[in-house]
């Protein structure tokens, strides 16, 4: 049964971990649950089962076992892991948490810009690491 309460809504940044009405057989259609900056967010009850998400944005959401992501109206759900990188752009991550493709890559490519993950600056060294490097170079 399609949930009127949870369908066609914007839950971006909101946790539903305490919801007690996400019951087996519930269908949630066309809602956004994206969690910025927090890949693999546990925003649903850990014991939730039997819920079907149809054409939802579940980026950065952990889906407990026993629930289904389904296509509807010709549109699948999205369940990518996304995180801002040192170039201040949002990147899609692989299973190891490494950036593989910039979000909205097609817009960049349409403007003739091919952004590669190797172009992302490496993380800044901490002060302690810099001292260690300097000491090693100076034979200390």
């Amino acid at each position: 049964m399609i949930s009127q309460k949870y369908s066609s809504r914007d839950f971006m940044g909101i946790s539903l971990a305490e919801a007690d009405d996400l019951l087996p057989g519930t269908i949630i259609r066309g809602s956004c649950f994206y969690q910025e900056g927090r890949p693999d967010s546990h925003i649903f009850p850990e014991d939730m089962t039997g819920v079907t998400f149809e054409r939802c944005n579940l980026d950065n959401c952990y889906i407990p076992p026993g629930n289904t992501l389904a296509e509807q109206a010709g549109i699948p759900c999205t369940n990518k892991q996304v995180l801002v990188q040192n170039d201040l752009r949002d990147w899609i991550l692989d299973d190891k948490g490494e950036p593989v493709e910039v979000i909205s890559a097609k817009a960049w490519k349409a403007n003739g810009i091919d952004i590669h993950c190797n172009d992302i600056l490496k993380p800044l060294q901490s002060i302690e690491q810099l001292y260690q490097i300097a000491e090693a170079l100076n034979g200390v």
Partner: protein
Amino acid sequence: MAFNAATQWEFQTTGDNTNGGGFFNATPGTSVDLALANTPVTFTDLVIDATTNTKITSALRPFTMADAGNIINITSGTGFTVQRVQIVSVDGSNVATCDKAVGTVASIDGNGKMGGALAVPTDALFDLVVRDNTVHIKYGTYTLTDTIYPTSSGIFANPIRCIGYKTTRLDMPVGNDRPTIACGAYSFYGNNGWVLDSLIFAGTAEDMFAPQGYLIVRNIKATNSSSTANRYAIKLAAASCKLFCCEGISTNGYGIGGTAEQIGIIQCYCHDSAWGLYHTGSYSNIVNCISESNTTGALYLGAAASSYVIGNTLFGSDGKTGTGILMSSGGYASIMLGNIITGFTTGINRSSGSVSALLLLIDQSNFYNNTTDVSNVVKGSNCIALDPAFADAANGDFTPGDNMKLDIDWTKMGL
């Protein structure tokens, strides 16, 4: 043949992206818009004529003249081309003639859906739209699962329109009665020659709502809640875009702005951002806008030149916050008149360059409750310093008080 220029496309939250989704009034008084009614007709027995591949029939659900103008989404069938076709006419023998070849002559058992609304915007659907088409989006929340970057474009004389509505098409909703596009991490780009009207956008993307050039954008509210700095709620990246009556909020970034030249930001409202307005493109007009309660400043112009900043209300805070207008070495040949600049550490600041080397006119404005009114620019002799006495600044009502209103004796003006 492309879809008819007068085609109206329909999005509803209860729609389906496998529906036909569009209609033009082929026979006024007879044709029925099945997309608006969201009453799709499913075919499983379409037959292509034995000699003319644009003609189709169905025995289970014969075509009628009321079907003329509706779009069929052909989904499968041996000899059928998977595509959307538009019924141009239906004759007295229930034969529908379509705008393009449906497939191979004499093919049978084709599947398709005629009419019915669409569910959510995608590139593939927006790429079907042609010049002079209108896309109607009914009230509700539409969740993007990818960035929208359509290839279809209009021109100024023949735009593509994308318009939100509450109950009846073209009812011009305001406030929260507008449809919402829930963007998540994705962006909504228009393309050149699109008109975008009466919609709400919410998300976190770098350029969350980015209309392109030669475009008119009206009655749009965009909120970017990203924790990453310097992201736009509404970004103008292509020339000649005009914004009317839009609202932009970007918690850690820019409400409205961009880099494009020859843009207009008119009667817009930016607030609770780092910079309310952040636009560095030259030859631009920023007119009758309100930019208030931003943490860093109201209007950043960078090195923009040859621009008009007219009749705006720029408010920092009662305790003086940030900068009203910040320019770098630019501002050459720009005019700033009739602005209320109040509640800033610095009203107008030009951070570098010679103060006398510009054709920069700053005059007939009200500077009030700023620690410093101007820095490295010349304030004109017709500026005043009166409390604007806003009606209720804390709640976004910047109606100026009586002391800011013109006192005109109309009897002396022959009226």
